[in-house]
């Protein structure tokens, strides 16, 4: 995380600074990860995948509006990122997140241009098992929580969320269809969204930080 990284001094990718001091300074998480992957450490690659698969998937799902396609493209992004890191293509390890999101954007652009998945790298044989990074039981739990969250909503609130998030309708259109004031629709949409978030946060019995930290070195 950049907040962590800024607290430390990276030995990699910086050309200036006192070498005596740099030998004792600890590596940031990102620098350590980038360095280890470049050295061919499979555990670092697994850690990298655990750390970046959730935001990559969230980004692709938001951009593509198709969770299945997002899951497929996510694999492409992770493979491209790992291959690039193995080749040492990232010069500033503190920009690891920018680097990964940039690769995700490139994959998206390629997909939108050709309307099919385009991979620019040969699939290596020794990739970490990316599917193992996602715990199936946990995924089912997440789905169940999300379903209970929307079932806990008032029917009108649920209808508003459905019309917004699934059908992509604007509050004015929803207001017209449900015979409500557009301001009421906006208010209820906002409230329903917050309720869903709070419900899932509560039911997951952990703050939203823990799953993210799972892939980070302490």
């Amino acid at each position: 995380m950049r907040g962590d990284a800024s607290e430390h001094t990276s030995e990699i990718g910086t050309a200036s600074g006192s070498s005596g001091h740099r030998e004792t300074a600890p590596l940031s998480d990102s620098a350590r990860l980038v360095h280890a992957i470049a050295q061919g450490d499979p555990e670092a690659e697994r850690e990298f995948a655990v750390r970046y698969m959730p935001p990559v998937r969230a980004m692709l799902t938001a951009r593509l509006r198709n969770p299945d396609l997002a899951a497929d493209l996510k694999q492409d992004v992770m493979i491209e990122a790992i291959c690039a890191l193995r080749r040492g293509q990232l010069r500033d390890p503190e920009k690891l997140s920018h680097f990964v999101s940039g690769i995700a954007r490139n994959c998206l652009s390629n997909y939108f241009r050709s309307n099919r998945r385009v991979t620019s790298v040969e699939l290596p044989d020794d990739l970490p098992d990316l599917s193992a990074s996602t715990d199936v039981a946990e995924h089912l739990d997440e789905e169940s929580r999300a379903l209970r969250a929307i079932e806990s909503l008032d029917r009108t609130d649920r209808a508003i969320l459905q019309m917004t998030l699934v059908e992509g309708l604007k509050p004015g259109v929803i207001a017209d269809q449900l015979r409500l004031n557009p301001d009421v629709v906006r208010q209820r949409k906002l409230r329903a969204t917050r309720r869903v978030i709070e419900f899932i946060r509560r039911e997951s019995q952990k703050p939203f930080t823990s799953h993210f930290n799972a892939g980070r070195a302490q």
Partner: protein
Amino acid sequence: MTDCIGAPAQKWLDRYLEGTLPENEAQAFESHYFDCPVCLGELQAVQAAQEQLRRHPIAIQQKARILSWPALVTAGSLAAALLIGFITLRAVHQEPSPVPPNSASAPSQPSSAPGQIAGQPARQSTAQPTVQLAQLADLNLPPFHASTLRGESSDSSYARGMTLYSAGNCTAAVKSLAHVDANSSDALAAQFYAGVCRMHLGNLDAAESTLRHVADAGDSPQEEAAWYYLAQIALSRSAAAPARQDLEKVVALHGDFERAASKQLGQIPRQTPR
């Protein structure tokens, strides 16, 4: 660890998911949540709900709308034609058999007692029940459910204030909530709870000012409750007109307080007894 408390997600999430966020802002949000577990968690929660809404859609009944003009004209013409046809047929059938003199239809107008005007007795003869407006006021503290829902990242003053609030220690809660950063995502909630604490403590002027600020801020999870408690303050001052005005705003928002507000509206006399 990140110090983020989810403000970027609150600012950008809706439009990001709708696809209406400008590209530069979308990329800024993405750069942020790649490194922020709180905002990523919120995004993932809404995406999970989105997926479940897609898989388990409910049938949305569009509310009946008044017929559009062309449909209204067509329906009207049809009804008129049917009526004319019916009257013509009836006239044709009735011609051969003369109507007995006493078979005229029963009077359709209800007979009124002499000097009695329909609709008025109930209003005039029964005195308006005198309602003590102040007794209607609900000055109890609203429950706070979110204290256990928040993760480590919540504003510490807010978390402390709400713990005190949940324990019923309004004085200490107000002091703690006053330290919540005005830019934090909990700022409005903090103001709201500080407002109801002041109301509970009897400091109605300060409570009104705080709650008015929350209500006037518009779209927020606290907006409806703020209008409701402003109405309660007005009621406790026996001020019917502002209470009614605020309660009508509550009802218009169709939220959790709608029923209570409607009930109170029914209890407030149009003209306050003097």
